[in-house]
């Protein structure tokens, strides 16, 4: 690696900036087929409650246009598509083709058709016009984005005035004793479970490391305000394992 090349975190390692996208893609190509089952096992099913909170707080209604960025296997898209009805639209976007394919097949199999579009999209350069969406969500995806500030600016740009961004992401545990247990679980149990269930220890080691490198609650809130959001707030869930950040464009 050249000394002059700018680098960025990839888990606990530093990689050249242009390589992070490829490496993240590699991780998600590897876990795509087992992504849902692993989420259930890793979070003991609690990720469903976190996502349900997100849906509840969105306040979404029929006719709304929604962007589910880093939508992966389509958990949020499915709920939003039912709510926006035939007069609304949901766009499931992900940088990883394998994840979009898994999500698309899953939703079609469950009868969710007609008001969902699927696209491959880079969060740092969204191919949508300004002021397009009533709601944008990015669930468990922002920590994998190379330039988070740029992604937040793009999300602000594509939101309609009055629109809302919801970021559901692993964050910093607020309870010190629980934080120690959580660290042990993340670095000792989680990768082993990844090996056992998905035969992929390295990818799950990366997931644990990337969570620790992600900005904490207050830092991310400040980043949202700097990106242009007129109001930002967050809500800790499960002692801060996950935080739901919400930003509004007025």
């Amino acid at each position, binding site marked *: 690696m050249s000394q002059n090349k700018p680098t960025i975190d990839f888990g606990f390692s530093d990689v050249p900036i242009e390589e992070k996208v490829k490496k993240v893609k590699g991780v998600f190509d590897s876990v795509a087929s087992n992504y849902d089952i692993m989420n259930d096992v890793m979070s003991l099913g609690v990720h469903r409650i976190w996502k*349900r909170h997100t849906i*509840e707080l969105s*306040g979404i209604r029929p006719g709304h246009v929604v962007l589910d960025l880093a939508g992966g296997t389509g958990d949020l898209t499915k709920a939003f598509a039912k709510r926006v009805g035939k007069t609304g639209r949901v766009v499931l976007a992900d940088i990883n083709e394998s994840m979009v394919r898994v999500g698309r097949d899953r939703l079609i199999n469950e009868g969710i058709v007609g008001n969902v579009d699927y696209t491959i999209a880079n969060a740092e350069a969204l191919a949508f016009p300004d002021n397009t969406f009533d709601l944008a969500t990015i669930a468990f995806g922002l920590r994998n984005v190379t330039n988070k500030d740029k992604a937040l600016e793009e999300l602000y740009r594509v939101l309609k005035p009055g629109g809302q961004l919801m970021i559901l992401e692993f964050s910093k545990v607020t309870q010190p004793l629980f934080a120690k247990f959580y660290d042990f679980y993340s670095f000792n149990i989680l990768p082993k479970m990844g090996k056992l269930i998905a035969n992929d220890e390295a990818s799950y080691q990366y997931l644990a490391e990337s969570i620790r490198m992600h900005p904490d609650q207050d830092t991310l809130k400040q980043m949202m305000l700097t990106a242009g959001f007129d109001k930002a707030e967050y809500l800790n869930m499960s002692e801060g394992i996950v935080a739901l950040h919400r930003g509004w464009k007025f």
Partner: protein
Amino acid sequence: MQAQPNLALISLSKTIESVLNTAIRLDDMQGEAFKALDDNVIELTLTPIESPLYFLITHTTVSVQTTLQGEADAAIQTTLIDFASLPIQRQLPHAKLSGDTDLAQRFIDALCSLDIDWEEQLSHYTGDLIAFKVGHGIRTLLGAQTNAKQTASQTIREYLQFELEAVPVKHQVAHFCEEVQTITDEVDALEKRIQQLQQTQTST
């Protein structure tokens, strides 16, 4: 940081959503009545719970959530008990409707119209014979319950009216009301006559 979300309310919304969509799926008409409510939002307040629930109806799927951007198209206020007993009572007797009241009434009618053939559903698991016997047993039980209710009501009424003579019978009440009406008319007539006499006296 925001306040923690109301877990109990979110659980309630999720439970109502699951039960309602299961009922629509099992309904004889597959929730046909909900089609007329497509793309509408109904706000439902179930006292004593203060926070409302929002019912988003899209095609024949109902999504329930605790927050909504903007106003609902119609609002219904009723009690949690009345709402919970709706599948049996088939009505929401004390509901207060606001906003698009016609839409609110159609939503109530759609809920009341859900008709699940439990015997048919049960027969998928137990076979026709057992399902029929269970259904017959439940119908007999419900019939006996209705009869017992009617008999008890009649016995109490007769005891109060004829044994204790604590309350009047229907025709006594009617006769009393007639007499009150007669007296009222006579008093009115007398009042007018007095007024007339007073006017005559003033003019002379």
